[in-house]
C-alpha cells in the first residue's frame, strides 16, 4: 500500500483566494493511499520545502503530490527537495492548481472540487510511479568536423583551442572551400585568400587537429558522446609522408588540358595536381579519370620524376573507423549551373557565366591573373550585365527561397568590374536589394552612386547571341514594365545557392533531418539554430541555409561552443523520461513481436534491432530495443505498438490508465 503525502499550496492569494485550500487538504485525506495531507501558504519557500521534507521522513512517505503551480515552473524544485529527503525524485508529481484552476476559474465550490480532482488524478499517478534514475552516457572527447571550408576550419580551430581533439574531414584534396576561390570579399573588399590562408595553415599545424583531406564519411553508428565514424580516405596515389610538395610531377605531367575545377572550368590543370598553389596540404593527387597511365596503362612520368619516390600507383582507398563524441556538419553549398536556364541558352553561351566563375576571372591568382577577359575570345568586355536572383526566388526552377548572398556579391562584382574596366558599363537586373548587414547597404549604395553601376528593377526573360553580342531582354518595372534590351559582351548570373551534392545522402548516413531542398535542418529555428535533431550533431554555415562568410564563421563558433560544452564533462546526464521495450523471461523474451512498425514513428532513429540468441549462437528472435542515448521521450512509439511492448518511463500505460480511472 502506498504512503502518499499531499501538499497543497495557497501561493499566497494566488490559489487561496479562489480555491478553498483547507477544504482541499481535508478532502485529500480521504483518497485511498494518502496518509498525510496539509496546506501551506508558500510550498516553494524554504520553510515550505522543509515542511515537505520533514513529512516525508516522519510519515515514511513513498510518494508526494505537490498541489501548487505548473509543473513546468517548479517540478524540478520539488523533485530535488523530495530527492534530498531520501525518496526518488521521480516519485514526486505536481498538480497544477494555479495556472489550470485558480487563475482561470471563479471562486466557488466547483473550482474547489476541480482542485481536489486534479490532485486525485496525480495521486493515482504517483501510486504507479517507479523510481527512475538519470541516464549517464560516457563522452569521447574528440570532435569530427565534416567540411573544410571557412566554417569547418573555424569550428575545428575553436574546439582545438578549447583543448579538445578534432578530426577535420574534407572531401576535396585541400581545405579552403569556396572562400579560397573568391577574389575579394564584401563589404570590405579585402582579399579572400589573404585572410583565409593563415587560418588554413593554422588548422593544419594545430596539435589538436587531424586533417583528413580527400576523405569522405562513409558510415556513422552510435549516439551522442559515442559515435563510431567510418571515413573513406580516397587514394591520392601518393605517399604523403614522402612527398615534399616540390611540384616536379605537376610540371612534367604530359596531360595538361584538363578542365580545372578550382577555376570553375575557365582554366586547365594537369592529371596529377594540387587544386591551387596555397593548398593545404600541399600534396598532389592523381585524377584517375584523366591520368594517361590509368587510361592507357602507359606513362608514369610523375613516378619517374619524383625525387622522393612518393608516387604509389597501387595505392587503394583506406577505411578508417574513429571514436567520436560530437560531429559538426559544415559541408557548405553549391551554385546552380548556367545550364539550368533554358531561357538563357542552357549554358551554351560561353560568355554567360556564374558568380563563382566571375570570382575566378576577377582573382589575381585566376586564369586571367585578374584581368577582365571574357571566356569566348579573351576580349575585354565593354558592357557587362549582372542578373541577380538567377534561379533564386523562382519556384518554376524549384528554388523558391532567397539565396541571400547574391545581392551583396553582385554589387561587389559590378564594382570590381568597374574598378578593372573604367570605361565599362555595368548593369544589374534585380528584383529587390537585400543588403541587411553591417555596412552592407552602404556598400550597395557605393556601387550605384560612386561606381555608377546601373541598377534595373526587373527580371531578364531571354538572352541570345547576335553579332558577337549577347542580347539581354529585360524590363524595367519601375517604368511600368517597359522592355529594356541591352547588348552585352558578358553576362554574369548570380545563380541560386543550393544544398551540396549528396547532402541528402550524408544526412541519411548521420540520421539528421533535412528540408525539401536538401539543407540540413536545425533543431529549432530560433533557439537551437546550431543543433540538429540528433543529439551530438551540430551545424555550421551554408549546409543549413544560404549564408555569407561572417554568418558562417559566427555559427561555426557557436557550434564549437556547443561541442566544448558537451565535452566539459566525462559523462552526460539525461532525464530518464525515455521509452523502453519490455523484456521477459524465456521463452517469451518480450511482448515485442519484432514487427518494427514503431521504427518509422521514431523521430530520432532511436529504435534498434536486438537479436536474442540461444546459447548455440542461433538467433531466436529479433526484438526492438530503444537506445536511451538517442530517445528523447516523446512516446510516439508507445502509442504505435500494438502489443504495448513499449512503455514510456514517467508517462507509462499504468500511470495514465490510473489517472483516467479517477475521472
Amino acid at each position: 500500500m502506498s504512503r502518499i503525502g499531499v501538499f497543497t499550496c495557497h501561493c499566497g492569494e494566488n490559489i487561496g483566494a479562489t480555491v478553498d485550500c483547507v477544504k482541499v487538504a481535508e478532502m485529500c485525506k480521504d483518497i485511498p493511499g494518502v496518509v498525510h495531507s496539509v496546506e501551506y501558504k508558500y510550498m516553494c519557500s524554504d520553510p515550505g520545502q522543509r515542511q515537505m521534507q520533514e513529512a516525508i521522513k516522519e510519515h515514511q512517505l513513498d510518494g508526494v503530490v505537490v498541489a501548487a503551480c505548473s509543473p513546468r515552473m517548479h517540478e524540478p524544485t520539488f523533485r530535488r527537495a523530495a530527492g534530498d529527503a531520501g525518496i526518488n525524485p521521480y516519485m514526486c508529481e505536481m498538480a497544477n492548481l494555479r495556472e489550470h484552476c485558480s487563475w482561470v476559474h471563479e471562486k466557488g465550490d466547483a473550482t474547489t472540487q476541480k482542485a481536489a480532482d486534479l490532485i486525485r488524478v496525480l495521486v493515482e499517478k504517483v501510486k504507479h510511479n517507479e523510481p527512475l534514475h538519470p541516464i549517464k552516457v560516457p563522452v569521447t572527447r574528440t570532435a569530427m568536423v565534416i567540411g573544410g571550408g571557412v566554417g569547418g576550419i573555424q569550428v575545428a580551430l575553436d574546439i582545438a583551442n578549447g583543448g579538445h581533439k578534432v578530426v577535420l574531414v574534407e572531401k576535396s584534396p585541400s581545405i579552403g572551400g569556396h572562400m579560397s576561390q573568391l577574389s575579394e570579399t564584401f563589404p570590405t573588399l579585402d582579399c579572400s585568400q589573404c585572410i583565409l590562408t593563415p587560418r588554413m595553415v593554422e588548422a593544419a599545424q594545430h596539435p589538436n587537429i587531424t586533417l583528413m583531406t580527400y576523405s569522405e564519411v562513409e558510415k556513422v553508428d552510435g549516439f551522442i558522446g559515442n559515435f563510431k565514424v567510418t571515413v573513406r580516405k580516397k587514394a591520392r596515389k601518393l605517399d604523403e609522408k614522402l612527398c615534399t610538395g616540390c611540384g616536379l610531377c605537376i610540371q612534367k605531367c604530359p596531360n595538361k588540358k584538363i578542365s580545372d575545377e578550382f577555376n570553375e572550368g575557365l582554366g586547365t590543370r594537369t592529371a596529377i595536381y594540387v587544386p591551387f598553389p596555397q593548398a593545404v596540404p600541399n600534396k598532389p593527387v592523381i585524377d584517375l579519370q584523366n591520368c594517361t597511365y590509368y587510361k592507357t596503362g602507359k606513362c608514369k612520368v610523375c613516378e619517374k620524376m619524383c625525387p622522393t619516390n612518393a608516387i604509389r600507383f597501387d595505392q587503394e582507398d583506406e577505411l578508417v573507423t574513429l571514436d567520436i563524441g560530437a560531429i559538426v556538419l559544415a559541408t557548405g553549398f553549391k551554385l546552380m549551373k548556367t545550364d539550368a536556364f533554358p531561357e538563357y541558352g542552357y549554358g551554351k553561351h560561353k560568355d554567360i557565366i556564374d558568380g563563382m566563375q566571375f570570382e575566378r576571372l576577377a582573382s589575381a591568382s585566376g586564369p586571367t591573373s585578374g584581368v577582365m577577359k571574357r571566356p569566348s575570345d579573351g576580349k575585354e568586355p565593354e558592357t557587362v550585365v549582372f542578373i541577380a536572383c538567377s534561379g533564386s526566388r523562382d519556384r518554376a526552377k524549384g528554388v523558391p527561397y532567397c539565396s541571400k548572398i547574391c545581392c551583396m556579391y553582385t554589387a561587389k562584382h559590378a564594382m570590381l568590374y568597374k574598378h578593372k574596366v573604367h570605361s565599362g558599363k555595368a548593369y544589374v537586373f534585380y528584383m529587390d536589394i537585400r543588403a541587411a548587414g553591417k555596412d552592407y547597404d552602404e556598400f550597395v549604395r557605393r556601387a550605384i552612386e560612386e561606381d555608377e553601376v546601373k541598377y534595373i528593377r526587373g527580371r531578364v526573360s531571354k538572352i541570345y547571341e547576335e553579332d558577337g553580342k549577347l542580347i539581354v531582354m529585360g524590363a524595367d518595372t519601375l517604368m511600368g514594365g517597359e522592355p529594356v534590351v541591352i547588348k552585352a559582351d558578358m553576362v554574369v548570373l548570380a545563380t541560386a545557392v543550393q544544398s551540396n551534392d549528396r547532402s541528402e545522402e550524408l544526412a541519411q548516413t548521420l540520421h539528421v533531418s533535412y528540408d525539401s531542398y536538401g539543407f540540413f535542418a536545425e533543431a529549432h529555428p530560433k533557439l537551437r539554430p546550431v543543433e540538429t535533431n540528433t543529439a551530438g550533431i551540430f551545424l555550421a554555415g551554408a549546409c543549413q541555409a544560404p549564408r555569407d562568410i561572417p554568418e558562417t564563421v559566427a555559427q561555426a563558433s557557436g557550434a564549437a561552443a556547443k561541442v566544448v560544452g558537451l565535452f566539459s564533462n566525462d559523462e552526460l546526464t539525461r532525464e530518464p523520461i525515455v521509452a523502453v521495450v519490455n523484456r521477459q523471461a524465456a521463452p517469451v523474451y518480450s511482448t515485442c513481436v519484432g514487427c518494427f512498425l514503431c521504427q518509422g514513428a521514431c523521430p530520432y532513429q532511436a529504435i534498434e534491432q536486438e537479436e536474442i540468441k540461444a546459447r548455440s549462437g542461433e538467433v531466436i528472435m529479433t526484438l526492438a530495443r530503444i537506445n536511451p542515448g538517442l530517445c528523447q521521450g516523446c512516446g510516439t512509439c508507445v502509442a504505435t505498438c500494438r502489443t504495448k511492448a513499449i512503455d514510456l518511463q514517467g508517462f507509462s500505460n499504468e500511470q495514465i490508465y490510473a489517472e483516467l480511472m479517477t475521472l
Partner: protein
Amino acid sequence: MEAVNQRAKELLEKGEIKAVLGYAKGTGHVRRPHFARKAGQVDQLVLDAACLQNLAVYVTKHEVKKLGKVAVIALPATQRAILQLMAERQLRDGELVILAVDGEAVKELDSAAALEEHLALKAQGLDAKDKALLAELDAMSREQRWVYWQNELSRCMKCYACRNSCPMCYCGTCTMDCNRPQWVPVASHGIGNLEYHAVRTMHLAGRCVECGECGRACPVGIPVHLLTFAAEESIHEQFGQRAGAKAKLDYALSTFKTDDKESFIR
C-alpha cells in the same frame, strides 16, 4: 490445379519443401486447409471457387515454422498477406515457396521483391460487393450506424474467432490479453465489445489485406470485416498507401506527410 499439384509433388519429392499448404474437401461445400506432407497426399488438394480461406494465417504459426520450408498455394489475398508479413519481418525471403494462383495462372515466388512485383501487376482494392456494403453503411445517418453496430455487436461473445483467423493478428501476446493495465475489458458487454472492435480495427488499419477472413470466421455473422475494410480504404484514399503491396515496410501510421489534410483539426 494440375500444374500446381504437379509442381508441389515435385518439390516434395525433391525434398525441397516439407509440406504443401493448400485446400482439401471438407464437409459439404466447405474447403478446409490441408497440409500435404508427402507427394502421395498432394492429390487430396483441391482448388475451386469454394476455396476462400486466407492460408497466410498458418505460416507464422510456430508449429508450421518448425516444419521447415513449406509451399503455400496462395490465392491473391493470401499473397497480399504474405507480402505484408514479410514487410513486418514475420517471414523471411526464401522461407516459403509461394505458389501464387491467379485464376488459371500459376507463378512460383519466394521473395518479397518478387511478390511485390507480382502483386503490382494486379488491381487491388475491394470487390464490388464489399464496396456496395461500405457504401450502404456510408449512406446511413450517424445515428443509424450506431444502432446498426450496436445491434450487430450485441451478438459478439468475444470468442476471438475474428482475431484468430486473421493472418495479421500474429502477435504472441495480444493487447486483449494484457492486464497491466487492462485497457480492454474481458467481458463481452456493450462497452467491452465496442472497445474490442475499435482496437482490432485500429490495429489492422494500414495492415489489413482485405481478405475478409474475420467476417467469414464470425460464428454469429457480424460483418466485422467492414470495419477494417473501411479503415484500410480510407487510408488508401487519404495517404495512397495499401497494406500488402510493398516489400519494404510502408505503414501508414508510422509515416506521414507534412501536408496531410487536417481540416478536422480546430
